[in-house]
């Protein structure tokens, strides 16, 4: 069996902490809890968790400050939890270095999926990057730079290819508009979200069965995009 993954929950609501603890321990994680931001930051240094669940509405310090402080010295994956309608805070947290987000109220399956993804992409993992994505209708092979749908070759423009590559490298993880724009177009275009939208729309048309109800290229409205590929024959790295 693998080493048990350590999760630190930084959340001020006691019932929420209780529910998370039960859920996560049930899935085999070792759970640590903190109810304040400053306490949480201290604990990170001492217990060195594999992943952190951070509530954005903490009383002593706002979530954003926690993320930026943490990122100054650590790459531990962080999933931020926020109440609804605070899109702005979520985006800022993601741009600051958080890896993913969850909106209250959320279901347990959503949480577990996010945690799995965050751990998979964690820098501490042995980075055997998936190069081939294969499903029943779509095949993407980055080593050969080819994309096939229903057995037929799909032509992507260089920009589309780069976006696809970026998203796939972060399979399961959300990427903000800003992150995508910065990676593909450079820092000076970070406010032109609709550039990304247009290219994503074209990508969806080329790769998806139903553009409005996509399977792989998911839109997180107001935040960015998420590539979701449940890999059938992914080579699991030694640590998972």
């Amino acid at each position: 069996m693998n080493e048990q993954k350590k999760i630190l929950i930084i959340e001020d609501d006691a019932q929420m902490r209780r529910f998370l603890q039960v859920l996560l321990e049930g899935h085999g994680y070792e759970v640590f809890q903190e109810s304040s931001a400053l306490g949480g930051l201290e604990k990170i240094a001492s217990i060195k968790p594999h992943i952190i669940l951070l509530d954005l509405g903490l009383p002593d310090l706002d979530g954003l400050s926690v993320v930026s402080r943490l990122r100054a010295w650590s790459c531990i994956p962080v999933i931020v939890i926020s109440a609804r309608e605070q899109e702005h805070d979520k985006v800022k947290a993601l741009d600051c270095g958080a890896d993913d987000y969850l909106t209250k109220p959320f279901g347990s399956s959503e949480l577990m999926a996010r945690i799995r993804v965050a751990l998979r992409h964690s820098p501490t993992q042995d980075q055997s990057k998936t190069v081939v994505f294969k499903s029943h209708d779509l095949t993407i092979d980055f080593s050969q730079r080819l994309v096939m749908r229903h057995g037929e070759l799909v032509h992507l423009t260089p920009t589309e290819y780069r976006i696809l590559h970026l998203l796939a490298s972060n399979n399961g993880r959300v990427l903000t508009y800003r992150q995508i724009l910065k990676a593909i177009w450079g820092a000076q275009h970070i406010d032109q979200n609709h550039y990304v939208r247009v290219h994503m729309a074209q990508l969806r048309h080329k790769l998806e069965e139903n553009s409005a109800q996509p399977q792989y290229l998911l839109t997180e409205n107001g935040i960015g995009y998420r590539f979701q590929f449940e890999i059938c024959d992914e080579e699991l790295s030694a640590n998972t």
Partner: protein
Amino acid sequence: MIPAPVVVCIGSSRQSAALITTAAEKACALGAPLHALNIVRPSARTQNSAIEENLTLAITLGARVITRQHRSTTQGIIEYAKTLRAVDTLFIGHKSHKFWQRWCRRDAPSQKALQAEGISIHIVELERNRQSRQNTLIFEYGVSALAVTAATTILYVIRPFIAEADVIMAYLATVVVLAYSFNRGPSLFAAILSVALFDFFFVSPFHTFAVDHEKYLMSFAVMAAMGLMFSSFSERLKKELRDTSKREAQLRDLYHLARALAAVSTTEEIFNLSRIHIATLCEGRVDFFAQKGSAFTALGARPNIDETSLPVAEVSLCFKEAKLIKTTGDDGLHILCAPLGFEKTQFVLVLRSAKPLDEERDNLLHTCLSLVTLSVARTQLAEQAKSAEVQAQSEQLRNAILSAVSHDLRTPLGTIMGLASTLLDKEIHLDGPLVSEFITTIYDVSEQLSQKVTNLLQMSRTLSGKLTAKIDLQNPEEFVGGTLAKLKHRLAGVTVETQLDETLLIPIDISLMEVVLSNLLDNAVKFSPENSKIIICGNTFNQHYALTVEDQGCGLASHIEKNIFEQFYRVENRELEGMGLGLAICKSFIEAHGGKITAENGSFGGAKFTIVIPLKDTLEIMPSRE
């Protein structure tokens, strides 16, 4: 826009002072800045003390003094006028110079020259002051003497052909004519002179002042008396005429002020109007002040008139004691502070004028003050009434929402608590599937509760003030797809079909539109049977983007198509959940985009909701790293 300035030329005569005051009043009435122009001859050694005095007066009345050097006064004025954008009125004193005096005064500005340059002159007929009065009197005496002498000469020449009575009549006629035009002094002088000359030339013994018949004494007396009476009458009539027309003008001004005040609705406008009218009526400069803490702020629009010193002590005393205060400023101006206010002193009117306030102007001022007080009170009460009405309305709405909330949140909460307490009940044994079912229901109901809370929050956003849409260019598929993904659980029992055209970007606020679409889908599910279809179509046409949501449910009754967008409207007799806020929210959100939402019955028998939003002009060209 600042109106063109009023320019007054400063002269050395005493009449200039009156001219400056008149110009200041006119400037105040127009709301225009006042410029006092002083043309100095290069050869002049020192400033004339009279000019100094007049300059000081001009400054006190708020004028901006401009000094120019020029050999010719007329040319100086012309040049200055040209530097200004426009001159509304140029004040030059015009004294009734007779022709032989004009050519002596070479430095007086020439009317003709100025008019030739296209500058409109406003000639102010000044009241003759004492000095000019003296000049005029001398002139009138002279004319009287001449007239009487001339009459005598003529009569003497035609003496053989006329009777004595005619001579008397002729003299009387002369005296009457002179009395009509001239002052009392000269006419009396004319009467006496006529008597004397009549006596000398036409009464025996001739060429002496003696009389041989006493009857002539009566003639002399009558002639003198008539002269006196005529001149008195004439004088009195002239005075009455002047007074009447002045009073008429004042009444007209008051009438205009009252009418104007009745029409305005803000205190700012009231003060602007009153300042101008009262300044004209009471012949002085008017300012209104309000008290803010320990300082006083001037009210009403202020054109570029130089601020003169505020009589702070008097104004604060006026505020404190709420009574009229009259005083004289250091600069010699008469200051009057009057309190204004409905129940307490809210404003103070400060009148500064060169003339002391006589009884007539005092009455006028008080009438104006009452008018202004009434208008201000009326405006303030109207504002209070309006805000009370608005408050009452929002209270009503808030109460309606609270009661709706209370009802519609308690129902699902009741369900959750009921199910949970049943699960906890130790006396009942529930088998596995039933437990699962209960727990699933608890989850579903919680989800719906969450949606309702969202709706409520959205509603309060709309009601709390201006709802501004943060519009960005969004992809229709993403917006629809994202919303569908979020409602996956809710839409589990139906099939959703999307038919969106190739429109790449539409200008929308995605968070608002998500709420709209969620509400429409929620309604569609609510009123549709299991396993039915919901169809979402989107296309561009004619500079607009249309999005329709159509279901296969029970449809809308024909008369409710418009009403369903009203707040709290609920379809009758249906025991389904829903606060009726959903569609009202949709409507206000769509309207925030400048769009429209309509409802009708669709081709599948169910309801069809259509959202239309306007498209902006051009889409930015995106760079692609090809």
